[in-house]
C-alpha cells in the first residue's frame, strides 16, 4: 500500500511478474522485485515463501517460465550463475561457497589470480587481497588457510570475493545465521560501507531485529506471491510478521475450543511429567531451556524460522547431542539421550520438518516406510510377521486416509500430504508416549492438513503427549493446551493456551505491545 511513496531513482534490477512452476507447485507467482543502487533490500518470508527461488531465478540457477528480468534497463536472462556474476550480480550463500583448503587470498582471487610470466604471483595476490580486505575493514591474514577461520570470517571473505568482482548487486542469503552479535556488527559495518558506495544489497535473514537495523526497504513474500513492499522506517515488526505468516482462519474452527478444555480439570503441575528437560541447550542452536511435557497434552511451540523451534525438538529427541542440561523420561534416571535410538527405546517419536532429507525413503514402498520405525526397534532378526504387517498397514492406511490406498507403491510417488501421513503412521505404529511434530502440515494440501490436525487432537485425548511445532500461529493456537514461545534461540514465554490470540503471540515475539501483555520470562 505504501508502494507509491517509494520513488525509484532508476533500479539496477527489475524483476517483473516472474513466475516459476516446479511440477504442480507454483513456486513463484507473478513476483516483482526492484533493487535500487545504494540500498539494503530485505527479502522476507517464511519457509517456502519463495525467497530462495526468487534469488535463483535472478542469478540464472533457475529458468523463469514467464515474466521479465531487466538489468540496467536491458532485458536479460542469465544462463548460468557465472553469467550473472559476470554482469555484476554476486551471491553469497548461507553455506559458504568457498574452498576451505586454500588460503584466504586464493579464495578471493581464484580464477583471476595475478600472474607474472604465467606464474601466479603470490606476493601480488596477497597484496591485492589484503587491500580489498582492508577496504572492507576485515582483519584477516590473506595468506592463512580459509578453513582455519571461524565460519563468520569465512562468510566475510566470501563477501569480499563477491565485492571484488565489482558487484553492483550483492545478494546475501542468510549470512548471519551462524554469526554471533559481534560478528553481525562487523558484517553490517561492511554492508553499510558497500551500500554507501552504491551497491544494491539483497539481504535475506530471519532475524527481525537485524532486518530492521540494516535494511532500507523490504519485499515480503508468502506462498510464492509478493504480499508487500515497504520502507522499513514506515513498518513495524508486528505488521511485517503479520504479512509474513498471513492468516488462515477458515480451517478447523470446530477444533478450537474442545481441545483446550481437556486438561482444565487435571492441572498439569500436579502430575508427573512424561518428559522433563532441565537446562537443555546446545551451542549455536538453543540456549539452555526447561520444558515439561505431560500426558494428554499438546504443547505448541511458536516462533519464527530460526527461533530455535526445530532445534528444541531435535534436542528433545537426541537427534542432536545437547551440550548442557538433563532429560528425564517418565521420571526415570537422569540421563541425556545419546541418539534417536535411545529416545525411541524410551517411547519418543519425532517427525522432522525436512521430510525429504530426514524422513522419506523414496524408493521403498509405502508399507516399508510405515513399518520401518517398528522394524528398526525390533532389529533385523525379528521381522514383523506378515499378518501383523498387513493388519498394521491397512489399519493405518484407513485411519489416516492415505491415498492412493496401495501400500506397495514407492513412497516417492505419493503427494507431500500423504507422505507426511505415512511418516506419522511410522511413529504411531511404535506406540510412543511422546510425539514431537516439527511442521507436520507444511507444504501439504488443506484436506490432509485438517486430517493431521484432527489426528493430533485425538491422540492427545487418548493420553499421548504431543509437541506441535508450526510456523502458522493459528494452527499452533488451535491445537495446543500450552504454548511455548521461542525467539532468537531462547524460550521467551510459556503459558496455558487460554484466551490467547495470534496478536498476543506476535506481541510476545516482536516485543511491540498492541495491548498490555504480561510476560513470563523463562529463567535463562
Amino acid at each position: 500500500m505504501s508502494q507509491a511513496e517509494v520513488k525509484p531513482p532508476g533500479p539496477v534490477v527489475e524483476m517483473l511478474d516472474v513466475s516459476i512452476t516446479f511440477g504442480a507447485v507454483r513456486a513463484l507467482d507473478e513476483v516483482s522485485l526492484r533493487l535500487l543502487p545504494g540500498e539494503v533490500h530485505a527479502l522476507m518470508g517464511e519457509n517456502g515463501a519463495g525467497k530462495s527461488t526468487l534469488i535463483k531465478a535472478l542469478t540464472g540457477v533457475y529458468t523463469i517460465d514467464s515474466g521479465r528480468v531487466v538489468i540496467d534497463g536491458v532485458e536479460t536472462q542469465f544462463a548460468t550463475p557465472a553469467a550473472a556474476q559476470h554482469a555484476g550480480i554476486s551471491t553469497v550463500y548461507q553455506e559458504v561457497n568457498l574452498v576451505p583448503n586454500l588460503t584466504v587470498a586464493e579464495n578471493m582471487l581464484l580464477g583471476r589470480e595475478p600472474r607474472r610470466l604465467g606464474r601466479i604471483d603470490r606476493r601480488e595476490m596477497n597484496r591485492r587481497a589484503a587491500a580489498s580486505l582492508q577496504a572492507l575493514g576485515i582483519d584477516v591474514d590473506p595468506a592463512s588457510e580459509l578453513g582455519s577461520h571461524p565460519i563468520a570470517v569465512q562468510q566475510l571473505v566470501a563477501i569480499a570475493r563477491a565485492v571484488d568482482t565489482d558487484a553492483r548487486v550483492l545478494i546475501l542469503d542468510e549470512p548471519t545465521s551462524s554469526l554471533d552479535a559481534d560478528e553481525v556488527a562487523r558484517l553490517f559495518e561492511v554492508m553499510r560501507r558497500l551500500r554507501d558506495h552504491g551497491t544494491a544489497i539483497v539481504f535475506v535473514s530471519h532475524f527481525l531485529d537485524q532486518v530492521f537495523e540494516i535494511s532500507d526497504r523490504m519485499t515480503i513474500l508468502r506462498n510464492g506471491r509478493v504480499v508487500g513492499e515497504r520502507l522499513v522506517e514506515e513498518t513495524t515488526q508486528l505488521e511485517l510478521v503479520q504479512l509474513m505468516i498471513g492468516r488462515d482462519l477458515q480451517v478447523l474452527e470446530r477444533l478450537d475450543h474442545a481441545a483446550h478444555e481437556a486438561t482444565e480439570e487435571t492441572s498439569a503441575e500436579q502430575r508427573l511429567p512424561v518428559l522433563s528437560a532441565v537446562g537443555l541447550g546446545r551451542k549455536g542452536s538453543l540456549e539452555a531451556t526447561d520444558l515439561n511435557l505431560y500426558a494428554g497434552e499438546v504443547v505448541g511451540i511458536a516462533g519464527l524460522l530460526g527461533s530455535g523451534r526445530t532445534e528444541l525438538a531435535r534436542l528433545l529427541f537426541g537427534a542432536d547431542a545437547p551440550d548442557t542440561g538433563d532429560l528425564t523420561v517418565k521420571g526415570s534416571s537422569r540421563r541425556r539421550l545419546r541418539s534417536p535410538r535411545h529416545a525411541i527405546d524410551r517411547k519418543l517419536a519425532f517427525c522432522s520438518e525436512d521430510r525429504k532429507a530426514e524422513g522419506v525413503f523414496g524408493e521403498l514402498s509405502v508399507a516399508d516406510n510405515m513399518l520401518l520405525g517398528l522394524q528398526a526397534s525390533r532389529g533385523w532378526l525379528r521381522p514383523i510377521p506378515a499378518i501383523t504387517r498387513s493388519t498394521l498397514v491397512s489399519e493405518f492406511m484407513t485411519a489416516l486416509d492415505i491415498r492412493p490406498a496401495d501400500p506397495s507403491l514407492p513412497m516417492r510417488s505419493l503427494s507431500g500430504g500423504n507422505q507426511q501421513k505415512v511418516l506419522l503412521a511410522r511413529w504411531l505404529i511404535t506406540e510412543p508416549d511422546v510425539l514431537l511434530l516439527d511442521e507436520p502440515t507444511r507444504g501439504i494440501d488443506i484436506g490432509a492438513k485438517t486430517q493431521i490436525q484432527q489426528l493430533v487432537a485425538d491422540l492427545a485425548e487418548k493420553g499421548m503427549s504431543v509437541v506441535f511445532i508450526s510456523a502458522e500461529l493459528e494452527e499452533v493456537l488451535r491445537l495446543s493446551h500450552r504454548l511455548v514461545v521461542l525467539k532468537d534461540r531462547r524460550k521467551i514465554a510459556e503459558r496455558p493456551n487460554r484466551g490467547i490470540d495470534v496478536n498476543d503471540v506476535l506481541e510476545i515475539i516482536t516485543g511491540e505491545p498492541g495491548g498490555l501483555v504480561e510476560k513470563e520470562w523463562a529463567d535463562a
Partner: protein
Amino acid sequence: MSITVPEEGLLARAARFSPPRRYLPVLGTFALFIGMFGVGGIRYEGFADPQVFLTLLLDNAFLIVLAVGMTFVILTGGIDLSVGSNVALSTLIAARTLELGWPVVAVIGVVLLAGTLLGTAMGLLIHYFDIQPFIATLAGMFLARGLCYLISVDSIPIKDETFSAIAFGSITLPGGYYLGWTAVFALVIVAVAAYVLSSTRFGRTVYALGGSEPSALLMGLPVAATKVGVYAISGLCAALGGLLFALYTLSGYSLHAVGMELDAIAAVVIGGTLLTGGRGFVIGSLLGVLVLGTIQTFISFDGTLSSWWTRITIGVLVLVFVVAQRVLTRR
C-alpha cells in the same frame, strides 16, 4: 588472526608459510623416511651410504612418476586404477614399435600419446557422464590390459641401443657417487608437477576441486577442463612411467606392473595426501615412494625378513596415515 600486510622479509615469509596443520602429514612422512634410513644405517653396514639412497631413486623412478600423476587425480578427490595396466601397455607399445624398427622419437611419441588418450577418455567419461572415477578407471584398467594381450602375450625384449644407453646412463656426482638418468628425469617431473600445482591457475583449480566441487563451479572455475585434465595428466605420467619401466626392465610384457596402481596410491597416501582430495603435495608423494623403497631396501639388507613384510608394512602405514588424517580433519 593477525593482520600483517607486510614487506615480505624472507624470514617473515618463512614463518608465515609454515602453518603446521597443512604441512604436518608431509613432515610426518619426511620424519618417517629419515627415521627409517637412520635405523637402517645403525643396524646394517653400508645402509647409510649415499649411494643406497641414489639407487633407491633409480629403482623407483617409474613409481615416482606414477605417483606424481596419481597425486593430481587424488587431489581432485578422484582415483585412477588404470595406471598399472597403462604402464604395461606402454612397455609393450615401446617394445613392439622398436621391434618394428621405428625411430626412438616416434616410439616415445606414440607411447605418450596412447597413455594420454586413455587418461583423457576416462576423464571425459567421469566428467560428462558422471561415472564414478573408480568404475571408469577400472574400465580403463581392463582396456589397457586387454590391449596388451592383443599386442603380444609374450614378453618382448628391447634391444635398441639408444634405449640401452639411456637405461644405463648416469651422471657422476662429487665423491664418486652416480645417479641414473631415469632418476634424474623422475626428479625433474616432480619439480615440474610441484610448480604446476603450486603456481599455476590449473594447479590451484585442482586443489579447489578437491576442496569443494560445487563451490568451484559457483566460483566460475573451469571445472570440466581441470577434471578431464588431471586424468589426462595421470595417463601421461603412466605412459612416462611405462617408458621408465621399459628402460628399467628392457622389455615389454603384458604382465608387467600388475598391482602397481596400488603402490602408487599407497605412496600418495603415505605422502600425506588426503584421499578425499584437496590436501597434499607432490613432494609428499616422492617421499611416499622413497618410504616404500626404503622398506624394500631394509628387507633386502636384513636378509632374515621376508618380502611379504613389505606389503604388510605398507598396509599398516596406509592405515596410520588414513586414520591420522581422519582425526586431523574431523576437528
